[in-house]
């Protein structure tokens, strides 16, 4: 392979292709590039040597590592490239230069960030993902999406600014900006970087940007968004904060709280946004545990999640495309018109629920085993609780209320072929990596072979009788709970409405206070101006009355008055001089 190709970061290739695509009016050529670039990227990545700096640079005394592949970044990069490919196929029916180009550049920036070897380069691509991804939300073209995109951009840029501030502290303290593991959050800059990553990973209370923007994005945009930003943050945590104890609890809380919101949320794309939160929680928790088994689990689950969450977003995108809504209260019975979409959605739903023979079964089990090995019963129970919750909102609610349940009477066309193809490919991957390794090296072993701790991964057996039995018990009995609650009519009905989340604090209380402050200032400002002008005006009048040519001192008895004033002032000066000298 020529030298320039070995040094070409696949992410850069996608960014370049994206820039070209933005200016390319020929639709099919542009889409050809959007599909071709990830394919070339996968080939480049497959041929790249690992643990070697392929491209370095020195800028202003900073040693930048622009392209480096290792066991951890390989899996994320590969997943991002596959996602970029699927997104391009999914977008084949659209004709939108900005969306095509920005989606490519967004994926490229995430890949480039995963394959860099220093904090400064990470920061640059971290910001590029923020700026390019906002177009996915803006592309929806509604007023609500415009405001959501501005909030989104603000939060994402804040994350970048915190990261940069953290890097500055780290550089000042150690003089080294290489990617490093922070054992102690009290180290200079570590906490800032931790929060910067935490924003993009949508930690509890920092998560609102996700549920705010993804459901308001365009049909294609939401699919593109689902793959990159949060998983890049997971990668960054796995790289720089493995074994950080606080992540265990943060992750466990992240898995549990979105479950409750997802149950009552009516917009199915928003349900998926909460579901994203919940799945990221599993990964974050595993990174906190930090053992090789746990990190393998986090990485494998990230790969699987990019596929099945993308698949679920694609199926809801297809529903939105054909019906114009993803509100559960307006949907139902769509399997009659969209049977293929239904099948693919069900594959995604079963995969995310960790049914044996589907992807999450072989990935999430590593995380649960690692938590059990580490002797954390409460965390383990929380994750098991969240597993039942996943089954509720992503496994049952999404397909049931969209495709089955009460027939909405909507009769639409099946999704366009390109959407079905992209969904079919994602479904294929979701099944393929969940199968037992009947042929060695295929099935789940294919994914396990790619994991950063390969030997530990290959020693792990997901298909034990115990594991299959317990997992089936959990899923079947939880499904029975659904059937039971439905049968007795105690399942809460889907109602239209906005569900309040913690963003209420800044969208209502914070915004209200800012408005109140504005109103108050609008009244206090003029009042203060009036008082100021009143005082200065009066002072001016007095001075003018005394000293102006028409004033008191200029009138008649001027000479006398002047002589008296001069004498008085002179006396004062003399007195002062006398006192100070004496």
């Amino acid at each position, binding site marked *: 392979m020529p030298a320039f190709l070995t040094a070409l970061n696949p992410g850069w290739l996608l960014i370049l292709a994206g820039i070209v695509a933005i200016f390319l009016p020929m639709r099919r050529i542009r889409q050809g590039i959007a599909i071709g670039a990830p394919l070339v990227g996968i080939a480049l990545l497959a041929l790249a040597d690992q643990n070697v700096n392929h491209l370095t640079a020195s800028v202003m005394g900073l040693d930048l590592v622009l392209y480096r592949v290792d066991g951890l970044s390989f899996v994320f990069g590969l997943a991002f490239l596959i996602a970029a490919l699927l997104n391009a196929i999914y977008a084949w029916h659209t004709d*939108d230069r900005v969306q095509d180009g920005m989606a490519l550049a967004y994926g490229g920036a995430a890949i480039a960030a995963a394959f860099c070897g220093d904090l400064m380069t990470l920061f640059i691509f971290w910001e590029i993902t923020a700026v390019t991804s906002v177009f996915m939300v803006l*592309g*929806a073209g*509604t*007023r*609500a999406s415009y405001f959501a995109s501005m909030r989104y951009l603000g939060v994402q840029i804040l994350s970048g600014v915190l990261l940069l501030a953290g890097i500055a502290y780290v550089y000042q303290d150690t003089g080294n900006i290489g990617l490093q593991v922070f054992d102690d959050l009290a180290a200079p800059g570590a906490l800032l970087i931790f929060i910067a990553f935490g924003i993009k990973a949508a930690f509890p209370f920092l998560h609102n940007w996700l549920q705010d923007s993804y459901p*308001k994005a365009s049909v*294609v*945009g939401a699919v593109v968004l689902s793959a990159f930003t949060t998983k890049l943050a997971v990668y960054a945590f796995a790289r720089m904060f493995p074994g950080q104890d606080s992540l265990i609890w943060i992750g466990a809380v992240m898995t549990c709280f979105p*479950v*409750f919101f997802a*149950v*009552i949320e009516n917009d199915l794309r928003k349900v998926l946004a909460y579901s994203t939160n919940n799945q990221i929680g599993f990964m974050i928790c595993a990174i906190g545990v930090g053992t090789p088994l746990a990190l393998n689990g986090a990485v494998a689950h990230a790969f699987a999640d990019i596929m099945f969450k993308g698949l679920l977003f694609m199926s809801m995108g297809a529903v*939105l*495309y*054909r*019906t*114009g*809504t993803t509100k559960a209260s307006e949907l139902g019975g769509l*399997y*009659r*018109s*969209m*049977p*293929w979409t*239904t*099948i693919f959605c069900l594959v995604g739903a079963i995969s995310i629920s960790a049914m044996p023979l589907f992807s999450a079964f072989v990935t999430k089990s590593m995380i649960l085993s690692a938590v*059990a090995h580490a002797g954390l019963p409460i965390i*383990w*129970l929380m994750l*098991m609780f969240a*597993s*039942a919750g996943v089954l*509720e909102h992503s496994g049952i609610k999404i397909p049931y209320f969209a495709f*089955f349940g009460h027939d*909405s009477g*909507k*009769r639409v*066309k*099946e999704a366009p072929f390109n959407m079905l193809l992209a969904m079919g490919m994602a479904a294929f991957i979701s099944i393929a990596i969940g199968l037992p390794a009947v042929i060695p090296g295929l099935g789940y072993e294919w994914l396990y072979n790619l994991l950063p701790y390969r030997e530990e991964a290959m020693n792990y057996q997901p298909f034990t009788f*115990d594991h299959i*039995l*317990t997992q089936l*018990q*959990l899923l*079947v*009995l939880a499904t*029975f*709970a*659904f*059937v*039971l609650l439905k049968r007795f009519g105690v*399942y*809460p009905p889907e*109602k*239209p*409405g*906005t*569900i*309040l989340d913690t963003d209420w604090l800044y969208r209502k209380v914070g915004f209200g206070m800012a408005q109140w402050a504005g109103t108050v200032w609008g009244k206090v400002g003029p009042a203060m101006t009036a008082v100021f002008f009143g005082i200065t005006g009066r002072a001016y009048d007095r001075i003018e009355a005394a000293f102006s040519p028409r004033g008191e001192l200029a009138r008649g008895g001027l000479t006398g008055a002047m002589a008296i004033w001069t004498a008085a002032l002179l006396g004062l000066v003399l007195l002062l001089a006398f006192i100070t000298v004496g």
Partner: protein
Amino acid sequence: MSNDTPETRDTTGRFLKRAAEKAHDLHTVSDEGVHPMAKLLFGWTEAKHIGAIMFWGIGLLGAFLIVLDLFVNRHDYFTFANSTGFYGLYGFAAFSFVVLMGWPLGNLLRRGENYYGDAGGPPADVDPDRPQGPADAHPTYEGDE
């Protein structure tokens, strides 16, 4: 006639469907807007008493899995997880809890759709040919009540 392939009949004298016709049928949406694959893949969901069949089927499967657990000596890391049917009962309890919490949480947290300002319509890139308006949303067919 443009179609000059000979039409064949079966022994009872009825015309045989050609493969191309069959394939065509599998792609042609019926007048009621039902995709032919839907009947094939999910026709069973319209079966009579499907609710009861699902209820008892899943219930019995769950019971079987718990009974099976009696005969298996599992080796979990936590002793409490080794008790018979722990996973099933925990899953059942967790699921029911989450769903039932939907009632109070819904009452507590649900506001009007335009609570944060105009929620707006669908994004710009939806199908321009999609059915629109309330008249199209609920087509009525003969026999509907």
